[in-house]
């Protein structure tokens, strides 16, 4: 670019002013003059401006915001009411249990919720400040203050204010004042802990591998929620209040519960505990801020991929690597079908969303029939449900790899070959699993003689499920987000089509019912007839469904590709 001499002579002067202007902070751009002494106020104004701009002219967003306000309000009022109950009842013992434990739960909520909804609010993502010459202390102070401004912090403050009311009832004005200091310290702790954990998490999730691992862990946790819930409920039935009191006393001396129990300490005449507990909380906040500051720098670098060197070269010819050494050391034929199945099998093992689906299905598939047969229900009907559930993993099978499907289109893979290969690869994982389910159910329900019929029923349901789901996967495919973030949700359009999946599942259960009815009326004969009849029923349903799906695919390939390509 040609510059005039005059412009050149002015250049350096203008440049030398640049950094000074920048050091005023990011808000300087939008908010006019800002302070130079590292005040956090520009960050707060920036956050408020971002919220306001986000709402401007977007009814959907406004509705979401109003919903958020309502939910926060309900949370705040309910929290206040719960925390104030011991005071109203004038029950010191209940207060000594509820306040530390409830407060601890609240702090833990601040740790977990941002992780689950990670990526929802990135308005003040540290990575966006990477290019500004800000001192780290200024940045921390600013981000911390900005995080205090918001519905969650406000709702938490109001909810915990219930403890102030309780302290006032139990110990008078002095206790209330101390407790108020406690809830402010508690709020600071909540924000510090959530910001620092989020930041550390962002740093930890930089590589694709750790993100993949996080997805799998999340799937395991999600799948275990059901069993865990039962275990906790069973534990509660046996628990006594003494144990809770002990736990609460201990929690009161940890940073989690300390801020919420100091008012009670005053009321109980243990004023000496107040400075000690405040010191504990203060030290915890300081430690968290230090940790945050340490991870912030790495978080600011964002998800820039760190180059890894090539891994050890693998032996074997390329074709062997694709179709050889599959499950159980089997080999697939070196044909088009073999290649398709080999690729699918590898995707079930390597692609995070598919792996998560397999894990979830394994846990649910084992847990549901076992819990049903333990509680004396009919494992037969539950088997139908499990078989249908297995097939549902294929409801958006084309969405998993998105636009990569273009390769199969340019290679001219016929629709039926495509569908058969995908079903075959899924069956390689699912059928052995169904066998395990049948064995476990037979053992748990104490009817080993029903094993074959049980397995037949499962295969029938799986076959019917595939028959229903495969056409759905062609008609109602939708794009999944391309990001590998474990917490990215499919936005918008997927929801309606997800409902269709639910419909497919219901249809599967309905179509499986005739077999269940026959089984019921045949009684013991079914023990012998169940396996062959189930397999025949399942295969017939699969053949019809896959045929329909294959023909649909032949007609709709470009439309399918467009549907699964994100951002169109």
């Amino acid at each position, binding site marked *: 670019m040609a510059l005039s001499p005059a412009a050149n002579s002015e250049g350096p002067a203008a440049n030398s002013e640049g950094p000074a202007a920048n050091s005023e902070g990011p808000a300087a751009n939008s908010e006019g003059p800002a302070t130079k002494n590292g005040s956090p106020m520009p960050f707060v104004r920036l956050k408020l401006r971002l919220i306001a701009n986000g709402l401007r002219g977007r009814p959907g967003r406004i509705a979401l915001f109003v919903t958020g306000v309502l939910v926060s309000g309900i949370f705040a009022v309910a929290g206040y009411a719960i925390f104030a109950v011991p005071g109203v009842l004038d029950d010191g013992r209940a207060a000594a249990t509820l306040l530390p434990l409830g407060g601890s739960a609240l702090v833990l909520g601040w740790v977990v919720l941002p992780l689950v909804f990670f990526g929802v609010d990135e308005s003040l993502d540290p990575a966006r400040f990477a290019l500004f010459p800000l001192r780290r202390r200024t940045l921390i102070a600013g981000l911390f203050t900005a995080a205090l401004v918001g519905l969650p912090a406000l709702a938490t403050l109001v909810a915990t204010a219930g403890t102030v009311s309780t302290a006032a009832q139990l110990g008078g004005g002095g206790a209330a004042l101390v407790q108020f200091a406690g809830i402010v310290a508690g709020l600071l702790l909540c924000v510090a802990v959530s910001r620092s954990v989020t930041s550390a998490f962002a740093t930890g999730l930089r590589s694709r591998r750790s993100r993949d691992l996080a997805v799998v862990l999340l799937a395991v946790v999600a799948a275990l929620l059901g069993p865990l819930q039962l275990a906790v409920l069973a534990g509660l039935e046996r628990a006594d209040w003494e144990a809770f009191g002990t736990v609460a006393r201990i929690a009161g001396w940890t940073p989690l519960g300390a801020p919420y129990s100091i008012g009670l300490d005053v009321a109980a005449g243990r004023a000496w505990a107040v400075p000690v507990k405040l010191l504990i909380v203060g030290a915890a906040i300081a430690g968290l801020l230090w940790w945050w500051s340490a991870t912030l720098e790495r978080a600011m670098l964002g998800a820039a991929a760190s180059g890894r060197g*090539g891994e*050890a070269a693998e032996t074997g010819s*390329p074709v062997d690597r694709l179709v050889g050494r599959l499950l159980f050391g089997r080999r697939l034929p070196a044909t088009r079908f073999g*290649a398709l199945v080999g690729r699918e099998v590898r995707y079930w093992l390597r*692609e995070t969303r598919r792996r998560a689906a397999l894990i979830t299905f394994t846990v649910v598939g084992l847990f549901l029939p076992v819990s049903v047969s333990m509680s004396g229900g009919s494992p037969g009907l539950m088997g139908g449900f499990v078989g249908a559930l297995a097939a549902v993993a294929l409801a958006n099978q084309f969405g998993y790899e998105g636009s990569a499907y273009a390769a199969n289109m*340019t290679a001219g893979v016929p629709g039926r070959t495509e569908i058969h290969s995908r079903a075959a690869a899924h069956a390689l994982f699912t059928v052995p699993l169904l066998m395990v389910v049948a064995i476990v159910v037979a053992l748990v329900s104490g009817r080993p003689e029903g094993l074959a019929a049980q397995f037949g029923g499962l295969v029938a349901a799986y076959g019917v499920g595939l028959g229903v789901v495969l056409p759905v996967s062609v008609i109602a495919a939708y794009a999944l987000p391309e990001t590998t973030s474990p917490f990215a949700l499919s936005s918008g359009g997927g929801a309606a089509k997800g409902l269709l999946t639910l419909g497919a599942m219901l249809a599967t259960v309905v179509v499986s019912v005739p077999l269940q009815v026959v089984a019921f009326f045949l009684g013991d004969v079914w023990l012998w007839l169940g396996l062959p009849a189930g397999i025949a029923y399942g295969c017939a349903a699969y053949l019809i469904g896959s045929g329909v799906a294959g023909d649909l695919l032949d007609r709709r390939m470009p439309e399918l590709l467009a549907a699964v390509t994100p951002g169109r």
Partner: protein
Amino acid sequence: MTCYFRTMTVPAQRHREEPPAAMSLRGLVKHFDTKLAVSGVSLDVPAGSFYGLLGPNGAGKTTTLSMAVGLLRPDAGQAFLQGYDVWADPAAAKARLGVLPDGVRLFDRLTGPELLAYHGLLRGMDAATVDQRARELLDVLELSSAGRTMVVDYSAGMRKKIGLACALLHAPRLLVLDEPFEAVDPVSAARIRDILQRYVAGGGTVIFSSHVMEVVERLCSHVAILSDGVLRLHGTLGAVRGDRSLEEVFVQVVGGRVGTGSELAWL
């Protein structure tokens, strides 16, 4: 069924033209919602030519090529590859075609060798040939050292190279490449140029899109300039360029601004 279609589609080949076009597009139109992405593109790519499709960002290059190779259904118009109608007889049209799409994912949870084997077997080649050619391609494109790394962990340049290898594996007679030189380092770009030039010298046809004038000027025998979904200019490089540089012609045809020297004076 194939025979039936062949008798139907072969007459579409225009015998009076010599040599027959490797790719010919007839009035392709595509709307996205209300936006007209491609409006009536007709183009003949002669067999044995090295054809460059030029255009600014958003000109409709990718949309046009997607319709030409059967990835995107046009609202109107036809596309013929080696005389076969892509939308009436896809199997025959795609058989001798290699495609490197842009903005389309690969099956990136496979390793490089696995991906090549996948493409080879998908094209119905026998295992021994796939192995031999895949090894050679990996070697030539310097991808052998990637070993067990999945394609998802490849750099952008490596991804382009493995995509190109997949397109070349079955020795097609027509290569359609969308932005083959984007994000590729100079050394690899030189290697790719070399491979493509030898391919054309051996009788193959290449059509590729780009917005880098130097590459097009250096490689192509023919160019077409596309902007706002309309084909503005096409023909042999010499005919399009005249006695000016390709960049001058391009900027003039596309209607870009020409600097007067007075704007941004403070820089």
